[in-house]
């Protein structure tokens, strides 16, 4: 492993989200805590000819974003930004406000419509992968760097990492970072072609797990240099790192070497020992391979303590929200520490011989994790890890 430099933490000032659990961060957190399942039959597009027609669909967008003429991806992103803006002030020199968003499949729904014959300008504009980020920048009045990045389903972690770098490198004073992806027929067809979708319940780490269901969401956080953060904040991003499997275009490395590299590098950057980890938010897709590999890697990194650290996964509640997933999981970690409760892994009931950690079954647990590790894996062997520190809610 290359030497990793410990770096200054970055403040996570606030967050905003729109998810299958509801139109804002409060509904996301309350839904996770109370065990709400956001999976339902998809209604926005026809599913009768799909093998699997369920997913984590957002049924209703906030009225203001729903009225916008933009493509759905932009609508989701702006809905998340509205929620964020309700919780934080973005006042700053516009040229020093940056946007970094991650997505796995960007405007592919619009491209599919264009391919099917609807070549309206709206469709073509929407098919441009970076148009949601630019729409967001225009909506927020941000004039700093605007980046759209992809590391497939780890994109939401990569975006936070790059956002932190922009701050540490003094390229911006505030960064709005996060991820998004939407449900559409194209992506449903794609994951179905890979036989990744289950017709059963999503059961991360469970003996009966049989695959994932997809979801849609947008999630954003507001980052600032730690010393510049004034007033209340959610917590801090202590470290982040990425690693490549370099082994297969669609399947994870069987030994999880890229993931292990990313976790160890993120811990080193955070200057945090594995013994300090209080919570792991796992990628936990509920595919047989992912969950087994992730468990094995966590055992190697955490050692015997792996059995004592709660490991949860939220994809049973939301579906796999692709580009948004890692950002939502990071936010969950911060809220868990803030409120002193770790959401349960919805769908986990029966122990698997290969997945034998503490996956927080049944109900939310009243513990207050201070330092959390969030892991992500994506197509192409992209792996990412975030080390986060929560602030307690003010009394």
């Amino acid at each position, binding site marked *: 492993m290359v030497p990793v430099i410990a770096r200054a933490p970055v403040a996570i000032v606030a967050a905003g989200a729109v998810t299958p659990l509801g139109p804002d961060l409060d509904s996301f957190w309350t839904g996770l805590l109370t065990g709400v399942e956001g999976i339902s039959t998809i209604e926005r597009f026809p599913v009768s000819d799909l093998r699997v027609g369920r997913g984590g669909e957002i049924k209703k967008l906030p009225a203001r974003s729903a009225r916008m003429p933009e493509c759905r991806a932009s609508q989701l992103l702006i809905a998340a930004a509205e929620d964020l803006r309700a919780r934080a002030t973005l006042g700053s020199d516009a040229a020093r406000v940056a946007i970094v968003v991650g997505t796995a499949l960007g405007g592919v729904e619009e491209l599919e419509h264009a391919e099917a014959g609807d070549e309206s300008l709206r469709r073509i504009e929407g098919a441009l992968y970076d148009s949601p980020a630019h729409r967001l920048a225009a909506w927020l009045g941000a004039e700093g760097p605007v980046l759209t*990045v992809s590391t497939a389903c780890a994109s939401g972690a990569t975006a936070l990492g790059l956002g932190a770098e922009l701050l540490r490198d003094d390229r911006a004073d505030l960064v709005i970072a996060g991820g998004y992806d939407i449900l559409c027929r194209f992506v449903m067809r*794609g994951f179905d072609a890979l036989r990744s979708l289950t017709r059963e319940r999503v059961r991360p780490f469970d003996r009966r797990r049989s695959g994932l269901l997809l979801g849609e969401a947008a999630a954003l956080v507001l980052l600032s240099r730690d010393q510049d953060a004034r007033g209340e904040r959610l917590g801090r991003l202590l470290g982040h790192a990425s690693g490549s499997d370099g082994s297969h275009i669609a399947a994870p490395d069987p030994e999880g070497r890229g993931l292990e590299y990313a976790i160890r590098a993120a811990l080193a950057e955070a200057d945090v020992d594995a013994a300090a980890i209080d919570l792991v938010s796992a990628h936990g897709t509920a595919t047989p391979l992912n969950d087994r590999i992730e468990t094995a890697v966590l055992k190697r990194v955490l050692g015997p303590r792996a059995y004592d650290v709660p490991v949860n996964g939220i994809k049973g509640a939301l579906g796999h929200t692709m580009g948004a997933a890692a950002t939502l999981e990071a936010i969950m970690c911060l809220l868990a520490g803030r409120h002193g409760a770790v959401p349960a892994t919805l769908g986990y009931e029966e122990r698997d011989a290969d997945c034998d950690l503490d996956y927080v079954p049944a109900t939310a647990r009243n513990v207050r994790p201070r330092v959390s590790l969030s892991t992500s894996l994506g197509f192409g062997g992209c792996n990412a890890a975030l080390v986060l520190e929560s602030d307690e809610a003010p009394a």
Partner: protein
Amino acid sequence: MTTDVVITGVGIVNAAFTGASEALGAYLTSPRPAAPSFAAGAPGIALADEALSRLVDATEARRMSRVSQLAVAAARLALADARIAGDTPLGLVIGTEFGDLRSTKAFADGYLQRGPAGLSALLFPNTVMNTMAAATSIAVRSREASVTVNAPLVAGELAVARAAAAVANGRLPVALAGGVDQLDGDIVRMIGRLGGAGETHGEGAAFVVLEPRAAAVARGVPILGRIAGWASRVLTARPYGVGRGTTSAAIATALRDADVAAPDVRWIYRSASGDAARDRWEDEVLGDDLVGRPSATLRRDIGRHSGLGALRVAAAAWTARSGLLPSDGGDVVRVPIGPGLVHGLARGGTHVALVVTS
């Protein structure tokens, strides 16, 4: 700037030429045709399949889409040029505008025309935007970060700027940075409806290898150039539109970081593409101080694609060393030795500036 970031390798694959830093120098000094050359009815300047098949062996090519083959071929050329061995810790930053669009269309067409029977498990992973980076990281055995940056028109410049930052701040020990895109008639037509008439489209890939100067010196490899400053900002514009604003801090920030005053910029590689509205906008953003400097675009017989931005960075390093600039008229003109600017302004408003010196 925490670390001096230098270029130690170049790899380029496109219809005009293919090769490493030596081939780039030969191309830039040779007389070039007065007009772009592509077959009547073709959407732009395409690389012949036979040329690509000489770069990627048949067994490997069967496992990769064409656009990934372009990326892998250029990446290998760049790493060989930099004398980087297969086990060197290496990160990737790849810019692209369209990703693997051909696989995306083929996947959609499959089920639109044939229903579930038309679904392809082999095609779907290629539809994710990072597929070229993934294929490249597998091919070159990269274990560090592999990030894809997406933007119209300036993705290559953006990728090099991000990679330079990652090397400078110590996140990546060595970075392979550049861009790749593949020509597609439908996209040329659709994008043309949004604007940009007059552009010549192309395809290919270009990479530069970036590393700290101290590391390059320790390895004893030739230093091809230095990226002394970089910055990106956004100017307000509708998606794929041309904006009215001309005030961006990108150029000033890049110059400040490079410790170069605007009057000392000797020459410019511009992103002018033949799209009259965008080219005028770029003139206005460059401003009176810079717009009159000797400039080149390299677009004419290569065509617009995300590799072109990285190619311009590599060419800028060559100009900084040689004092020669390949004008768009086809001549090579002598310019003062000194720092130059690689400037990118995209429809949609992404604005990138890199300062390159010898």
